[in-house]
């Protein structure tokens, strides 16, 4: 089988052609200008992943939403479930970038971390 895709590993956006067998054990990538392209294409065929950013509810702070991100790319299939879970979470200020909001989501090893600093309201 054959699939065309655009590499998203960097802003260049190479056009890749991926040829693979039924059982996915034989994958060849062409059109990439660097090694990252091959990795991306393989992953995209086997288990496509994305970094997810979102916000979670924040209490006791000057902000009402705390921006967060996954610390590595998560399988696309799990993104909706992660978002659903994140939208139920409530975090309490103070919080700093890097603070963990969710650990090892569904055993994937993916953690969710805060990306913004927020003092608690009493700090004012």
């Amino acid at each position, binding site marked *: 089988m054959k699939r065309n895709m*655009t590499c998203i*590993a960097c*802003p260049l956006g190479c056009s890749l052609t991926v040829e693979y067998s039924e059982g996915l054990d034989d994958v060849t990538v062409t059109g990439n200008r660097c090694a990252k392209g091959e990795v991306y294409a393989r992953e995209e065929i086997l288990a496509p992943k*994305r970094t*997810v950013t979102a*916000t979670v509810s924040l209490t006791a702070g000057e902000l009402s939403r705390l*921006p967060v991100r996954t610390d590595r790319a998560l399988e*696309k299939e799990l993104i909706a479930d992660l978002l659903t879970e994140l939208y139920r979470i409530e975090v309490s200020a103070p919080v700093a*970038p890097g603070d963990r909001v969710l650990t090892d989501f569904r055993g994937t090893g993916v953690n969710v971390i805060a*990306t913004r600093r927020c003092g608690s309201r009493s700090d004012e």
Partner: protein
Amino acid sequence: MKIRRIDVLVIGAGASGLTSAIKLAEMGYEVSVVERENTLGGILNQCIHSGFGLHYFNEELTGPEFADRLIGLLPDALYLAPNATVDRLIDDENGLGALVFSPESGITRYSSRAIVLAMGCRERNRGNIHIPGSRPSGVYTAGLAQRLVNIEGYIPGKDVVIVGSGDIGLIMARRMSWVGAKVHCVVEIQPYPSGLTRNIVQCLNDFNIPLHLSHVVTKINGNDRVQSVEISPVSREKERGPGSFTVECDTLLLSVGLVPENELTRKFGIAMNHETSGPKVDSRLMTSKPGVFACGNVLHVHDLVDYACEEAERCAKGVDEFLRGVAPETGGPVVSGANVRYVVPGAYNPGSDNRFYLRPMIVKNKSRLSVRAGEVEIYGKNLPHVQPSEMVEATLSKDALKACSGQTLEVRIE
């Protein structure tokens, strides 16, 4: 009215303002930053997606993380006035300065030896592109929608059409999908997408969102809230032709460009560049008013915050030279040649390496950037791909500039 005397007043605490303030404070100047929001970091705080910082911090960060890095670099000595709005710039018997309004301290007259303009930009809106139709609620600029969702936690609507395939439009398509709205399509007037290919893939293709190139919204329907929009191919823009179709939606997001916010600048009588909508600046990034400098999106709209920060550092250097009384060597003007909409700054200094940012007018693969003094090419570089939405950077060496000092430089893309 209170009076505050300082060396440098920086207007705006976004990426550019903070960067220039940090650099100036490091050089030992007494610096004040005034900011109208009550938080620092400007628009970065609502850009919660990643993709920032690859050049400036050598790692990929989200907007808030990038802002937090900058805020962490602020020296304690720096005076920060949040919630403070500059009403006007002044130059009178007390020297250069500004009138600043704030709820906490009333009106303060800042007197400074130099001013850095770093007010950023605003979004073009429905009026600027005059979309015909009714005027219901549900029509928002992408940035306003981004703020509603990412800072405040509110979702503008459930069924969304987006105008403009620039990166902000694309990023918002993904964001709206991730909060559970349905993005029906993205409409782009140009025959090619304006945003980065990787954003087309991650933000549209991942969600099966159609992109209608060479199309425009020709009518907004709905009396109270948007009910639908009519979309037509560009060639039939004037009337509903066979290619027109209607999409039911309750929200229309507009990502149709940014404009440097220069009302203060213009009112102060500073000479403007019509192409950038920013002030004209010399090689030090000083405007036509001695002592007033500009950097970041208020000077010209940047694609990457990293470039804005780099420019802000250069601006701080220019301020420092000005305050030390070092006159720059004046090389000559730098003008736009074929296929170049603008080049900033519009002058060069043969006393050092000079960096220029320019915006192409064409879409082309395998193009070439060429800088000429008369018939002689003094700098050239091959560009794999150019398009108007992607800024091009060029750094000319001191030696190359020295050799042609006095002549006008023309920058062209061919």
